[in-house]
């Protein structure tokens, strides 16, 4: 049953995952964290961090990790969990697979028509909003702590957030390097 749910969920994510990796984040988050509670918000954020540090598309990394964790948390064994991660990954790739083959066979010539271009002109700005929503939804006490519970942790988190934002956006520091520095800061200041 949970396999079917995993399959349907990630198939849906693959089908509506416009705008690449970051655009898909809010879909993945909405389904895995809020609808099915397969992952907690910090777990989801950890996966995004791990995806940044490992090769390959973020969506595939998230599907693989989530498939494994969802089954693992349901109390099933190692092989069942591996099967779960294979299910989620295949389900995610399947819509791309079908769509691209259809486009290759028949629809290549339709891609430049006004209809497709009009739809895309509505989708593109919405994807920007989706990415903004993904960031906003991750600004939670689980990820940042809160001034009431642990003010030190909270202000360190804010400082790391600001430093990373400025570092990657304006100073153009490599995101991987930035994550390493954040891990170092975490070890020094939050241990």
């Amino acid at each position: 049953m949970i396999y079917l749910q995993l399959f349907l969920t990630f198939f849906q994510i693959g089908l509506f995952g416009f705008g690449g990796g970051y655009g898909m984040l809010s879909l993945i988050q909405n389904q895995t964290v809020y609808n099915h509670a397969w992952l907690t918000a910090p777990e989801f954020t950890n996966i995004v961090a791990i995806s940044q540090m490992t090769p390959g598309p973020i969506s595939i990394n998230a599907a693989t990790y989530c498939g494994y964790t969802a089954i693992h948390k349901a109390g099933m064994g190692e092989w069942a969990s591996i099967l779960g991660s294979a299910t989620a990954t295949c389900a995610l790739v399947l819509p791309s697979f079908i769509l691209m083959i259809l486009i290759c066979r028949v629809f290549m010539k339709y891609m430049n028509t006004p209809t497709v271009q009009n739809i895309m002109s509505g989708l593109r700005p919405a994807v920007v909003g989706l990415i903004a929503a993904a960031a906003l939804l991750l600004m939670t006490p689980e990820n940042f702590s809160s001034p009431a519970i642990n003010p030190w942790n909270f202000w360190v988190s804010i400082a790391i957030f600001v430093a990373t934002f400025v570092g990657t956006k304006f100073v153009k520091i490599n995101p991987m390097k930035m994550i390493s520095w954040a891990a170092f800061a975490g070890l020094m200041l939050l241990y």
Partner: protein
Amino acid sequence: MQNFYLAAFRVFFKIGIFTLGGGYAMIPQIEAEVVNRHKWMTREEFLDLIAVAQSCPGALAVNMSVFIGYRMRKLAGAICATLGVTLPSFLIILLIAMFFHQFQDNAVVASAFNGIRPAVVALIAAPVFTLAKSARIALTNCWIPVGSALLIWLLGVNPIYVLVVAGMCGYLYGILIKPTE
């Protein structure tokens, strides 16, 4: 020509294993292999393919591998190329998932990830403004991203509905309002 299936699997496996940062970072690698080295398609065809693959849902690298594999050797070619590009991420993340459960409660790992999480949120937030520029967002249409973000963030609306409505609005705008402008 040598065995295409093996070559496609190997090329896309290499792309899958060596490109950090996903999507756009992979394009130059794919071009070097597919256009320059193996000559599976011309540069013009490759540029068209990027445009198409970007407008389709799903991971860019996966979309491109399916298309290239299918064009060369139909279904079997598409399967080889797609397996190639997906397997490295799958195997690496599977290993991490299997072992991370044991480490994530470790105090050292937990504190490092406490530092990493706010940084990740910033990494997601940072490209929003750059993307807004390339999606040609101005005063007249800035309500679309702002509205979508607020609907998802504050009201918990499923992002899929937001996309469907945005696509429909784009279509209706194109046939109803644009011709009268």
